């Protein structure tokens, strides 16, 4: 019995030793899956919770501009796992005072509620998070709350600089092509902060459709944060700029902020 355990231990050790040897030979060359897993956590899961004021400018090809302003809060039940989002809309006037609640589950459809203050009505929303636009912007729901890395097959293509920053260039191909509008995606992941500095989405014909850029990074309470993110639909010329102000992490947001009570009566500090 003891002998058998020893054999298993040795067998288990061998690949680890091999990996260690490789690591010494070629330092800090993580796998594409590791890069994307870290990027997912860095972008969508920093801190236990988050609060930020988001201003989205929707800019058309000919310069027409519409503004969406909201306060977003997020709470993680588990890193990389279940999350809850609560959003309060400040403007435009037709959505002012609306609140939006998302319970995000990895691996299955989110639960979503919208509160319409004029009708005092809590409505469940049946919107596909992979394609539907968030508040009319060029961001989909998935772009706001993150796409699970396991949904794509990743390949490390090269390393490349984006401005001053060194980045891993990762190619991702959806495992279920029918569920999304893109056929592949290139991501430039910062080697220092693990944040995506740039992403290119290619449509089903293989042509470039949307380009995301992190225009400004800022360190808040030790967490590197993309405080200005721009997405441009290169096929229509429409773009959306999202700017985050007043970012605060680990505010110990109460769990009951993410329920029907807050939908109907959002806490005062989120409304101002």
């Amino acid at each position, binding site marked *: 019995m003891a002998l058998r355990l020893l054999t298993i231990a040795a067998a288990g050790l061998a690949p680890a030793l091999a990996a260690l040897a490789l690591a010494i030979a070629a330092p800090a060359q993580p796998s594409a899956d590791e890069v994307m897993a870290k990027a997912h956590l860095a972008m969508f899961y920093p801190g236990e919770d988050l609060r930020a004021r988001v201003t989205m400018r*929707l800019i*058309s090809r000919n310069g027409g501009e*519409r*503004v969406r302003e909201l306060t977003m809060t997020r709470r993680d039940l588990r890193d990389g796992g279940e999350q809850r989002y609560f959003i309060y809309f400040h*403007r*435009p*006037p*037709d959505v*002012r005072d609306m609140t939006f609640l998302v*319970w995000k589950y990895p691996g299955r*459809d*989110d*639960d979503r509620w919208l509160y319409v203050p*004029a*009708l*005092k*009505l*809590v409505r*469940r*929303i*049946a*919107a*596909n998070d992979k*394609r*539907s*636009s968030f*508040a*009319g*912007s*060029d961001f989909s729901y998935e772009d706001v709350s993150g796409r699970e890395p396991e949904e794509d097959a990743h390949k490390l293509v090269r390393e490349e600089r984006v401005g001053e920053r060194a980045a891993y260039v990762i190619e991702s191909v959806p495992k279920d092509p029918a569920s999304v*509008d893109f056929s592949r995606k290139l991501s430039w992941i910062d080697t220092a902060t693990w944040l995506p500095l740039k992403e290119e989405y290619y449509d089903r014909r293989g042509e470039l459709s949307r380009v995301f850029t992190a225009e400004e990074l800022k360190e808040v309470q030790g967490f590197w944060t993309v405080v200005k993110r721009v997405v441009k639909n290169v096929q229509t010329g*429409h773009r959306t700029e999202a700017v985050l102000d007043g970012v605060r992490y680990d505010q110990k947001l109460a769990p*009951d902020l993410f*329920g*029907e*009570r807050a939908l109907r*009566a959002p806490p*005062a*500090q989120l*409304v*101002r």
Partner: protein
Amino acid sequence: MKRAAWPLLLAVLGGEAESEAVETIPFHGFVQGASAYRLVQPERCPHTQRLACEEEFVLGEGRVRLELEPRGERWSLTAKGELIWDAVAGEVEGELREGYLDLQFPALDLRVGRQIVTWGVGDLIFINDVYPKDWVAFISGLPLEYLKKGSDAMSATGHWRGTSAQLVLIPRFEADTLPEAGGRLRFHDPMAGIEARRTDEPSPSLDLLETGLRVFRNVAGWDLSLYAYRGFFRAPAAEVEPGPQLRFFFPPLNVYGASAQGAALGGVLSFEAGYYDSRADRSGRNPGVENSSFRFLTGYQREIVADLTASGQYHVQVMQNHDEFLRTRGPGMARRPAVRHVVTLRLTRLLWHQTLRLGVFALASPNEGDWYAGPEARYQVTDALSTTLGMNVFGGPRRSEFGQFEANSNVFAVVRYAF
């Protein structure tokens, strides 16, 4: 977005933090013009509805809305008032749509004042939402928010370990606004010959206090609610008095119900049920008073492709003591079946970064043959300015629920500038 500084009022109301006293009170509202033109002009109207034959417009108005919402850490005040200019009748009136004080305690929310209460999961089908509605606004093509009316009420909602309970007390009865004699809308009036009419409203007293209770909780992503209501029908019953004179009154009503809503089958599934206990006519022998009934609703909503959502509902209403209803039914009254079936369909398409919304809502009763269709296009010209063009079309037997409104079918336009 304009903001007016009202530090004094806030300081008086708040009295809590000096830092707040320098803050501004959000000040909002809109200016709105709305008009609805009859698609078919009724040719013959009873004397009590002669305006329906005279007026080509069912709606022609302008309104200004002002909203003030000072807020503190644990309280807020909401006041939404309107000044309405009715161009068809040539009248101006003011209305306080909502005016209430909110107080928040750790496990309790209190709301006192004129407030809108919305219950249930139906889309334009109301079972447990027993609160007052303005059907004239709906038929006339005003935006959907005008379907709901405020109640002068006190609401207390307690929260305990994920379960919540809301108690609503309404000391002053508010009836539904329905087409009535002397108005612009055409409707089926079995007593059209009697012009002398009076309405007895339940007068304010503790005996007549309306009480609603809703207990709700989320279980595994499903929103579950139980409801109970003790109060009155909001549509009047009628009886003929010597004279003859028609007396309208609001018979007592209890409603017990439940609803569930959750994500399933790639969309959202809804269920709602209720029992209407017509306390003054449990035997069903009084033809003027609505019989007791069971009501069920099931609905499903799903996004078919990006920005195109479809939803459907099936609603059934089962009248109790139907044989008594048939036996005592008066002349001119609709011969209603024991079971009324209703199906609805809604399609909503969002275009141009959700600035253009095309939608249609259709409702029909396969067994009674009445129907309603409401196509609508809403374009957000700028963040502040929106325009809506749509139709309200009614059809079916002239004594049926929606068929009676056929001659009010209209095309409407609404322009709103919000600030």
